[in-house]
């Protein structure tokens, strides 16, 4: 609980999620160039962050609930196996799945799109290594109490989302204002591949440690 590294990890993963064009900044830029308005970019980013946060919160909620009844080691093992399974699914099947939200969607649609994208990518699962030591400090949770654990989980989701929001806003505005969409051709590295590897690596860490 007193350690700082899980918080740094949460913020770092938030920044990583924010950097990924597929998680939202590109959508914000697209809406900006369509509507020729930087206000459209600025409005889109929080909606995207909210959708992302709800997806992350869902995983955190499940984790806290599981922690109330199950031993931490078993939660950790199950989460590790789940992550590895998700990485495999994401690599082989995930590409074929599309979120059917159009370019003329409103802010609610944007939030829903972001929620579905984050969920399908396993964004919440990726932050489990940071969440487990924070939320399941005493195992099982009966000693620490579900309330306290839930409060920490909410704080964790908040830290992750703020980091994501900051990076997404920064990149979206920079691309919209100064850099231009040409950057997609040169700098859009295959984040999906990195993402799969991070999911896989995280799963292994949870199983081994």
């Amino acid at each position, binding site marked *: 609980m007193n350690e700082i590294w899980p918080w740094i990890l949460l913020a770092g993963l938030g920044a990583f999620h924010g950097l990924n*064009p*597929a998680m939202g900044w*590109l*959508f914000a*830029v*697209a809406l900006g*160039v*369509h509507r020729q308005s930087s206000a459209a970019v600025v409005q889109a980013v929080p909606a995207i962050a909210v959708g992302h946060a709800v997806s992350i919160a869902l995983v955190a909620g499940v984790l806290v609930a599981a922690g109330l009844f199950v031993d931490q080691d078993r939660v950790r093992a199950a989460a590790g196996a789940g992550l590895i399974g998700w990485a495999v699914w994401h690599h082989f099947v995930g*590409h*074929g799945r*599309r*979120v*059917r*939200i*159009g*370019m*003329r*969607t409103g802010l609610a649609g944007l939030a829903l*799109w972001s929620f579905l994208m984050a969920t399908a990518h396993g964004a919440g699962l990726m932050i489990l290594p940071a969440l487990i030591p924070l939320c399941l400090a005493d195992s099982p949770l009966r000693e620490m109490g579900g309330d306290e654990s839930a409060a920490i989980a909410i704080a964790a989701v908040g830290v992750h989302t703020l980091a994501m929001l900051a990076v997404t806003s920064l990149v979206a505005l920079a691309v919209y204002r100064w850099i231009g*969409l*040409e950057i*997609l*051709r*040169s700098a*859009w*590295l*295959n984040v*999906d*591949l990195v993402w799969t590897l991070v999911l896989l690596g995280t799963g292994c860490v949870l199983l081994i440690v």
Partner: protein
Amino acid sequence: MVTWKPDPSFYPSPRMAMKAAPETLAYVVAFDPTRAVPDELAVVDVDPRSATYSQIVTSLPMPNVGDELHHFGWNACSSCLCPNAPHPHAERRYLVVPGLKSSRIHIIDTKPDGRRPSLFKVIEPGEVAERAGYSRPHTVHCGPEGIYVAALGNAEGKGPGGILLMDHETFEVRGQWEMDRGPQQLSYDVWWHLGHDTLVTSEWGTPDTFENGLIPEVLLGAKYGRRLHFWDLHKRKHLQTIDFGDKYQLVFELRPAHDPTKAYGFVNCVVSLEDLSSSIWVWHRDGTQWAVTKVIDIPAEPADPDLLPPMLKGFSAVPPLVTDIDLSMDDRFLYVSCWGTGDLHQYDVSDPFKPKLTGKVRIGGIVSRASHSGAKNGALNGGPQMVEISRDGRRIYFTNSLYGAIDEQFYPDGISGWMVKLDAEPDGGIAFDEKFFVEWPKSHRPHQVRLQGGDCSSDSYCYP
């Protein structure tokens, strides 16, 4: 197919795609009208610096006979960069080549050597019918949910036709696209406005009304396609029908503006039953609905009945038969193929409601039989048909065959295939490239042209 960077032939916007390097290869599907030898994909050298410029460098035969290769497309394109459905690390590598007659879909690999493509996979008609309930695959576009293939018939070869979806990496037929078809029955072309979440389809006829040629009674009875259908691209739901009226038949090729913020496009009507003219229409927004406005009329030309095929003798006129159109990447020039008269028109459509004729060439034609300086035999038959524009808008390629059974109805002596190229001036004006004339081998007739790296009817964009 894992790559670290997006395919270099993908561009976020049409503006950027115009800056692409000139194409060096063209892929052309060609079919054998006698169904004796396999249809083939021909690779034509279009690099003026090459020793084999304007020659067919390779022909890849299909594994069967009688497919009638017609329209085709890429497995992936610039729409992979769209923000709401990003999959930018797919490769534009495979050509998806359906047989309109056989309903067989061929997947052709253009790597590692674009001059020597190879057959990668064949999807048999049974799989198409079983998974999607369709047959007679026609138009192929890469888009938000994978590869969209318009099909003209259902599994039994009747109506309704519609769209099937394929995975753009595994080429698995994923099923029928429509979730709510509404009144739509006939199918032909499909395209979309990605920025407006709208899909548009046009109509031809059910396979029994076109596979043996146009049926005069059906045509004169105004029973061929004449409607546009507008759909919600993401909910896959029919929204609106526009009927052109019983005067207009064969409302065919859809060319939406490339700029995704613009909500208009062009469509050709092949023939008016009143005076055999062809017309070009613009579809556009009208409040919350879509509407159409006729913007170009191309009249039939009076002709000596002795020079006309039996189908036209009674009319003493050559219909222009506008069977294909294409829109330049900057949405400025519209090219119009008059397969009957032999003209190819260039219009400035900067104002889509007020087109200006800025260029015109003539080659072939039912009566005119105009020649080309590269042709050895003088008079040419067939006429401008499938037309394709380079991404920068400076080069226009076209071939002369329409469809096996229909070719003979208008050109009874059969069609000797050719492919030509025009050079276009930046501000309008077109002229033949005298050095580019591909005399097609007699065994086959050429149809659609696709350019390496994309062209003006193979990509769609999410950013203006």
